[in-house]
């Protein structure tokens, strides 16, 4: 029992969307079978997004802020100004928790969005990196006014030999934070490392997993096997659905499942949410989540 995680609100089945692009978040929220919450990857300054966010909240659903500029790993510390702006952002939009990929978003040259490196650079999976990651998470927790959750990032290659769930499990325990698991990212790790994530299942503190992501992806042919590419506008791969089916019965405390569907048309979003709803009812071990789905049905 971890009270600050246990007590987080159950949000149900949501969608991650671009605030100013199609599909329109409000239109989706108002559709029958639409998302129960909206997650967005916004800019650090809340005044840049507040009008769009308020439209969604006025439609009657909560939002989760899920950016890509925090270093949750590595030796390069986060800027206090950026963390303070993040705290203000979270407070203003009332994000129930704060989750982001645990990867490098910036290097020693200074803070910024992960796009300045192209996209996330994955952490090195070893003990020294683990110690740095714990330091980074605590640094964020010191300023952020809500529960922090770390997410294994998408990887096309893996450096280091520590199993994924050992690495993230130890950070979560040491920093007392929550975990977000993206099913596609887990598939990407398996393809990049040749290891099955479930081989280290006992290293994952399952009760700390509060959120699940599922999104489209593409496979590129590599000399040594397929390489997973995170591609939210694409269809969800069968391997990703299978990963979800395998993981759902292991996770008792999931509060939110989010379909990341930026760039997907509304009809496909709604049909995927329908498939997800059915799967969650059948397989999720999170009683609160299943009850929420029934309530909101």
């Amino acid at each position, binding site marked *: 029992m971890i009270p600050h995680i246990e007590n987080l609100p159950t949000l149900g089945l949501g969608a991650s969307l671009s605030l100013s692009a199609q599909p329109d978040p409000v239109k989706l929220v108002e559709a029958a079978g639409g998302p129960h919450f909206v997650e967005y990857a916004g800019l*650090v300054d809340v005044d840049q997004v507040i009008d769009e966010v308020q439209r969604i909240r006025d439609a009657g659903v909560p939002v989760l802020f899920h950016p890509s500029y925090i270093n949750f790993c590595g030796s390069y510390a986060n800027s206090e100004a950026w963390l303070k*702006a993040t705290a203000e952002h979270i407070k203003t939009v009332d994000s129930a928790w704060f989750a982001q990929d645990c990867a490098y978003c910036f*290097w020693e040259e200074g803070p910024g969005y992960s*796009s300045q*490196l192209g996209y996330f650079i994955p952490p090195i999976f070893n003990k020294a990196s683990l110690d740095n990651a714990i330091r980074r998470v605590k640094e964020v927790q010191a300023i952020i006014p809500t529960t922090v959750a770390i997410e294994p990032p998408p990887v096309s290659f893996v450096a280091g030999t520590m199993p994924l769930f050992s690495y993230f499990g130890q950070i979560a325990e040491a920093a007392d934070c929550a975990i977000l698991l993206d099913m596609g990212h887990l598939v990407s790790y398996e393809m990049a490392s040749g290891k099955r994530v479930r081989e280290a299942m006992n290293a994952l503190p399952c009760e700390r997993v509060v959120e699940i992501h599922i999104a489209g992806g593409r496979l590129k042919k590599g000399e040594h096997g397929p390489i997973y590419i995170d591609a939210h506008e694409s269809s969800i791969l069968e391997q990703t659905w299978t990963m979800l089916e395998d993981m759902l019965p292991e996770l008792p405390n999931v509060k939110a499942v989010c379909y990341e569907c930026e760039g997907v048309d509304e009809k496909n979003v709604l049909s995927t949410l329908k498939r997800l709803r059915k799967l969650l009812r059948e397989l999720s071990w999170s009683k609160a989540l299943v009850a929420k789905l029934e309530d909101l049905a």
Partner: protein
Amino acid sequence: MSFKEQERALFDLLFDSELRNEFCRHAANALDSYELTKEEKADFSTIRPDALLLDAKMRRNILLSHICRAFPVSFAIISSLSEGNSLLKKLVDTQIMRTPSLERATAFGSRLRDELSQTSFESTNEQTLVIAIVEAELAMAWTAATLKREVLKSGHPPGSSVAVSSDCMGKPVKLAAYVGAAILPLSYVELKRIFCKVADSELWNHISQSPVTKSLRRSTLQKEDPRLLVMRARIEHMSLCEPTVDHQTVELSEGFAQLFQHVNGSISVEQILTHLQEAGATEQILKGVSAGFQQLFDAGMLEAL
């Protein structure tokens, strides 16, 4: 034994193509120059070379699509040169990636200009015109970076421009802060219309698949209708983390460029007009010059002292 050294190696594998290629050929020895223990080096043995190559390629494409937004016309024209896109890709290296993001566009543009000065063109004139375009966009990147740096340092936006006074023409005049100027072979608006057929955010993807044709480059640059582009960087969104900047621009006839050297805070526009009159300028020219200066005052690009 150092984790920082491992981080340095990881960064270099992503952005140093020579190291990456060597790693893909001989993973065991490629990292010998890094101060890594046997165990630390072994952490890199788990990297799939094919995946590393793909990752680096995709990463470079995303980075170029970002940098392209600061140099849309330059990128489009360079795509029409043989090996033009390769030149742009080559510049995304550790030197550029080690440059703070605030200064990265400026650093990229400077190196691009230097590379172009050593690239063979169909004629020297064409080379001069292409470099002029790069320099104009570089001036915009530079004024934007300077303004952002100032804002982040001071924590507040620069003071708003002083209202234009009715007697501004009679006072010594200087360029306002964050203002740059460059001569272009054609109007910038026209160059963008001709070369950039999609939004700036989509341009790199577009030109890397469908480069601008040589004939379009040739025919456009042959039109030569030179303009003085004057740009002023302005804060679009104030932030203590990520201020954003846009540019206000004014385009004037090329002849105006010569008058700009006198805009140094020592003489007034009226004095400049008097000198021109004494040199035999017609009434029509004087009216045009006066209107041009008034336009720059109105845009906040000039300050009367």
